[in-house]
């Protein structure tokens, strides 16, 4: 008898748990990816909206990109930061050259996502979080390397370089091979340290510690570890890589309920250039501050939130 009654209690407890997770009334559900920049920008959006009096349901650090896409299309979240270049993959148009142009890429992403999913891309940040090559600061200064054109000439002229990159970066046609072709240089196998499955955190670490003679690394433009590791990002002056500009994207229904959101976020995202994002990401990743506090102190210092 006791077992049956225990089971009943458990069943009730289970139902209550499910019910407890039912949606609470909130004006808007803010979400983000589980990475450092997602955490930062998600908190920025949530705090800006809250400062204007909206009740925010916080789903920051929800998961990876596919999860976020499914969630916003299903209407389970309302707004999250996405990258313009990713639209190329959402809509199977990765081969199109227009993604390399910031304005055209943004316009195309905005149009495609609105037509297909009624998702509105608000104003993007003037930063580009794309694949790039970072090189140790003293090497860059000594050899006057600012752009990838400089880098290509230097490498071809016998510059002593060893680059750490993921297997994907080294092999996929859109990454290193594209750089090599456009900037007319070739890295021999002994000038590469391939970390299969490695992410930029690992490659940056490799360059910072000069593991195995590494002095250059695959990076993403706004990585927080870049300046802490003493690296500088070489400018992609011929625009080889698609532009990945961080942009808040929102469901049309949610935007219609609070149309002012677009105007609230625009000036905030306008301040997020490459260097600012690097610094803020660095405070989270290197200093170990919480994304919430970094976002709060930044918004306050810029006067967006009182």
């Amino acid at each position, binding site marked *: *008898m006791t*077992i*049956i009654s225990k*089971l009943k209690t*458990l*069943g009730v*407890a*289970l139902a209550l*748990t*499910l*019910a*407890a*997770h*039912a*949606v609470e009334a909130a004006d808007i559900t803010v979400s983000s990816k*589980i*990475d*450092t920049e997602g*955490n930062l920008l998600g908190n920025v959006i949530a705090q800006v909206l809250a400062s204007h009096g909206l009740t925010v349901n916080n*789903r920051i*650090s*929800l*998961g*990876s990109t596919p*999860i976020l896409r*499914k*969630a916003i299309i*299903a*209407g*389970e979240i309302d707004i999250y930061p996405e990258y313009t270049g990713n639209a190329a993959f959402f809509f199977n148009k990765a081969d199109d050259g227009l993604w390399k142009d910031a304005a055209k890429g943004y316009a195309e992403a905005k149009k495609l996502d609105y037509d297909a999913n009624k998702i509105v891309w608000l104003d993007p940040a003037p930063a580009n979080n794309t694949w790039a090559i970072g090189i140790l600061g003293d090497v860059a200064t000594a050899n006057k390397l600012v752009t990838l054109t400089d880098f290509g000439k230097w490498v071809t002229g016998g510059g002593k370089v060893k680059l750490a990159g993921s297997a994907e970066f080294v092999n996929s046609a859109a990454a290193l091979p594209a750089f090599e072709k456009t900037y007319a240089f070739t890295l021999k196998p002994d000038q590469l340290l391939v970390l299969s499955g490695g*992410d930029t*955190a*690992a490659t940056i*670490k490799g360059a*910072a*510690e000069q593991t195995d003679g590494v002095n250059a690394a695959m990076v993403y433009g706004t990585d*927080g*570890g870049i300046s*802490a*590791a003493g690296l500088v990002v070489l400018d992609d002056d011929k625009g080889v890589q698609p532009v990945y500009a961080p942009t808040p994207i929102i469901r049309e229904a949610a935007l219609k309920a609070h149309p002012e959101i677009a105007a609230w976020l625009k000036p905030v995202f306008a301040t997020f250039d490459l260097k600012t994002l690097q610094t803020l990401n660095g405070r*989270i*990743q*290197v*200093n*170990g*501050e*919480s994304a*919430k*506090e970094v976002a709060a102190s930044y918004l306050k210092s810029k006067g967006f939130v009182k």
Partner: protein
Amino acid sequence: MNSGFSASATRRGFRSAAFAGLKRGSFDKLGVVVALLTFAALLFEPFVTLRANRIVSGKGVNVFDALPHATAFAAVVVIAIVAAAAIARTATWIRAVGAGLALVVLAFLVGETPPHLIGPNQPLARVTPAGAFWLIGFAFALLLTDAIGRLRLGPWARLAILAVAFGIAAAFLVSGQWDGLSVMKEYAVHSDSFWQEAASHVELALASLGGALVVGLPLGVACQASPRLRELTLPVLNIVQTIPSIAMYGLMMAPLAWFAAKVPGAAELGIRGIGTAPALIALFLYSLLPVVGNTVVGLDSVPAQSLEAAQGMGMTRRQRLLGIELPLATPVILTGVRIVLVQNIGLVTIAALIGGGGFGVFVFQGIGQAATDLVLLGAIPTIALAFSAAVILDALVDILKGKT
């Protein structure tokens, strides 16, 4: 049982003047391992790692550099005494107390290192326990579990020891002794979400277990009664068990999102493609095999005489099941519950990838930032939870066995 080893050890001259007072054949095999491990770790392994900031690699610092000299010396003496007591075949309870004491000393010491190593102008520097700490900790934990095993403690005593261990850990945490360590620095930053994630971790593990019991127990009873149903059910559950967890969570998303969108009321109940619902259902499915399987095995193992006696007394099928069979099968069923709970506590970690929350959030954020400290902030509580669940349910099984 130790005579073979000690004889040869004696022949090789292990029996030095220091142990001359000990009886012949009085070396303890495990004690020698513990002492050697401790000795080697102290000499050759760094006690802590010092890093300039959160993500760079650090350099190892040995125990004598990591601590003020007097503290280091006192600590080494205490550890050496316990190790010597472990080598000599001292009374088991002395070994248990000594090992426990050594662990407490170790835990205290590691908290002493950050203030000694980090200056006031290095706010970003991090100190993390390293090889020697873990090896010595492992050695004495081994000694402790061995001694506790040899003491053949009852379930209540084991629970009491677990409670004491938690009490000591809590005292260290509350007193701030560990606040300088890197994992606690992560905790300081994430303290607001830590307990929230802890709650959802436990909630997910328990709720999925609850669901599995509600469905699995009747299913197990039915399977035991009908061989055909058993042949149908168990292979399916076996296959479910082999699906990798990431794939399972992924599989849950699409149908649930559809369900939430099309079935009225489903979304209001909290059923959706991401978050708690898919995590709960995936964990529930993983939980079914151990529950159903152990229910079947447990009922099968009820002695035929008991059943005949029950039948002879004129008990109905229902009375037999609830009054005789299930109570007798309970220890085996609880063993299944133990497997499920420990397994689920581990698997919940992956749920962070689909927005399910739990300690996995810290693990995956940490991986993304190359911040091992943050990974540990998620991993250590998960391990502590799983370990405690195992000890508690083991004790529960013993308590119930004792009663039947």
